[in-house]
């Protein structure tokens, strides 16, 4: 990808593939979206894929915190022999 700039069409295609894959993950679960994942990895440059995956993981974690909250470690655990 160092030869030229990512064109507008390429960028849009990459974003569409990414959105499709993540939507599939949200509705059907990660295991059922392998072909969309392949398409996503092909359409986007490797560095972008890495960036998007990291961002997606962070977004999911944030969502989990907002909806489920977080559990502090129980006191009994630390006191157990």
């Amino acid at each position: 990808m160092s030869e030229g700039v990512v064109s507008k069409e390429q960028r849009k295609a990459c974003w569409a593939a990414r959105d499709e894959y993540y939507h599939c993950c949200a509705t059907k679960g990660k295991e059922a979206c392998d072909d969309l994942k392949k398409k996503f990895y092909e359409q986007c440059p490797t560095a972008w894929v890495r960036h998007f995956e990291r961002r997606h993981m962070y977004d999911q974690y944030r969502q989990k915190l907002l909806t489920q909250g977080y559990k502090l470690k129980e006191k009994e655990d630390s006191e157990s022999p």
Partner: protein
Amino acid sequence: MMAMMMGGMRAALSRAVCVVGGSSGSGAAAVARGFHNSGRPAPVRRQLSRATRRFQQEQQQQRPKQQQTKSEPTPPSKTRGSLGRGGPISWKSLVAMLALGGGAVYYFQSARQQAEQERLKRTTKAAGRPALGGPYELVDTKGNKATNEDFLGKWHLLYFGFTFCPDVCPEELEKMAEIVDAIDKKKGKDSITPIFISVDPDRDTPDKVAAYVKQFHPKMVGLTGTHDQIKHICKQFRVYYSRPNPDGEEDYLVDHSIIQYLMAPDGTFVAYYGQNTTAEQATKSILDHMDTYTPPS
């Protein structure tokens, strides 16, 4: 004859009482008091003070007035209230109340509008401007030298990014294009210039920058430069950007601050807009600045 006798007896009796009164008290006082033929003592004509007389006169004047109002019968039609059935509310008072209420609402609306205008003036006229900006020298898309002076005379928006940016820079540049179109629509063509400055001089050659800015707006200016030139302008605008790990990787990402800087035609920094500001909000703010900007003395 009987009557004459009674009269004579009464007169004798009164004289006798007079004598008795005279023997006990002062004779002169008894004479002054005097006794009527009826036997009832005459009213004492006292020497009243001026104030007391005035008070008595006022009392007499008030009393006839009170008697007058009480005697006048009130016409039933004039004081009927509760819209015809008798009570405190009449048609007239209702209309008056509505008119007063409407007037109060109108007054408050206009006062609120005035306060809003004042607040807008106060917020756009920043008391202390941060010392952002200053002279810089870069390279434009044709490979020629470009300085800050090339952009004087027109409002301009600066954005720092890089062409290999996966999501943030395209979104911000699309937002910038929206803002520019909206402002040009309101203020006329060429009212504001969008400028993209690369923080990745290793990969962003003038050709690459030219191809990149063309994706967003035909008016968008693209600038790049040497490491030192980019370092200099980023220092002047307090732009944070990370230098990539020199491992030879070609597809690294540059971490950088995401801000659009609004510059006045005389080159002074006026305002900045972050990622959370929408195109409409930024457009409105820029139009306000354009209307109220005064160059620093």
